[in-house]
């Protein structure tokens, strides 16, 4: 059982985005960092915007995770999600990894209980075998 249906679309990642999903497949949440200056970014990009280096390393997520903003979707626009409404979509930030903007869903939380700034913990969900998604639940 996962937060959204197994049929939820999963478009082909860009070449420089693929490694993020490969790490998720191993249940490892890693973000792209610049191997030269250390600045971390997500979504992944081909070049470091701080020092223009192409060399990258993949760094394990660390520190608190915080709900930055969210929406509750009542009109899904995709037929496979009609039964799932109303569901939330959230943007979470990692205060110790400042360039990270991760879109996800908040599970084990009623939509009415979502609060901007709430602290979150990572949960892995595998809606279809081999497709592992990072979701979050309120930290207890």
């Amino acid at each position, binding site marked *: 059982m996962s937060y*959204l249906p197994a049929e939820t679309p*999963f478009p082909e990642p860009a070449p420089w985005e693929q490694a993020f999903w490969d790490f998720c497949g191993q249940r490892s949440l890693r973000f792209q960092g610049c191997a030269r200056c250390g600045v971390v970014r997500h979504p992944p990009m081909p070049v470091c915007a701080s020092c223009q280096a192409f060399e990258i390393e993949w760094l394990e997520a660390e520190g608190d995770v915080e709900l930055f903003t969210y929406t509750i979707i*009542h009109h899904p626009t995709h037929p496979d999600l009609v039964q799932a409404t*109303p569901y939330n*979509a959230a943007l979470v*930030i990692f205060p110790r990894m400042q360039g990270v903007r991760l879109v996800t869903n908040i599970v084990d939380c009623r939509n009415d209980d979502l609060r901007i700034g709430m602290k979150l913990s990572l949960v892995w969900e595998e809606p279809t075998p081999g497709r592992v998604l990072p979701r979050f639940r309120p930290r207890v």
Partner: protein
Amino acid sequence: MKPNTPCIVGIGQTAYTRWNQPVEGSDLQLACQAVLSAARDAGLPARDIDGLTSFGGDVSDPPMIQASIGIDELRMSAMVWPGGGGGSCGSVDLAAMAVSSGQASYVVAMRGLAQGQIGRFGRYSPNWRHGSFTHPFGLFAPPQLLAMVVRRHMHEYGTTQEQLGAFALACREHAQRNPAAVMRGRTLDMETYLSARIIADPLRLYDCCLETNGACAVLVTTWERARDLAATPVPILASVHGSSGGWAAGPLGSYNMSLERFTTVGAAHLARDLYGKAGVSPSDIDVAQIYDNFTGVAMIAMEDFGLCPRGESGPFVASGAIRWPHGALPVNTHGGNLSEAYIHGLNHVVEGVRQMRGQSTCQVDNARLCLVTGGPGPAPTSGLILGRA
């Protein structure tokens, strides 16, 4: 006015209809109708058009329009990079640059769309930048993506649902006087607004722009050439397009704008340049046409362009300031994308010209300066200041 000051000398538009109404012809036919009607408005033979511009992945390409309407010598064609409707004013910016530099003489900025044929923007599309990071989480379409920014603005500044509603109501009220408006004859009150279905909280049905078929176009030439044409020229006092650092897809999927700029549309530097070039300040603006894809982001654009202080668009809009005829700064006097038609904001440029000609159906008395803005959220975005000859 300098001889090479760019001026809008012709405006044209087709009928505007709901997306599900049948369209005679195609996107190309609609675009051709609008281009020809802009030329007719200016009193310029269509064959003398020598430049064509558009924005946001327009499907009607210049060689097809050239061949269709019989342009013998095309000298420039260009499009502002796709960024949804961000480049609406940018397409006019390109036309202005072309005529001022002498690269071309008569350039038409145009936009045509038959949404029933090319697909609705509100529907699921698999081709979305950073899609693998948004789609698996059920985040697909602009209202959902941008709702995140509006929710955050509410959190930071206390903006309320009723304040968003006040923007929607003002547009709808203005549309009642506009014979071309798709929503003419369908009034909207706050109770109906608040009880409408939620699309992506906090955006409700009437916070979202229409989806329509139609086209419009504006013809740009220099002040020097404008004197020989039929219509009163409307000078383009300044025009800009661009985007902010790190913006990428911005609130349309990457969210990698800085957290400090999260509740902006990334247009602060463009606004600064725009007012600087025109030699005016935001308080000089008499009327504004603000690209309204969604109420909340249009209101944030008003903040970026200095029409009210940062964070105060909610109270500003709710005070009635944007309502014609008594508000201090009427906004979207044609009804906007919310209530006139969704021609990706080029209809806002057309309305700006009408205001400067004194021909709007919600004419602002003695209006001398009109601000027009491009789509808020996407990158690039854009803006124009129109003046009076």
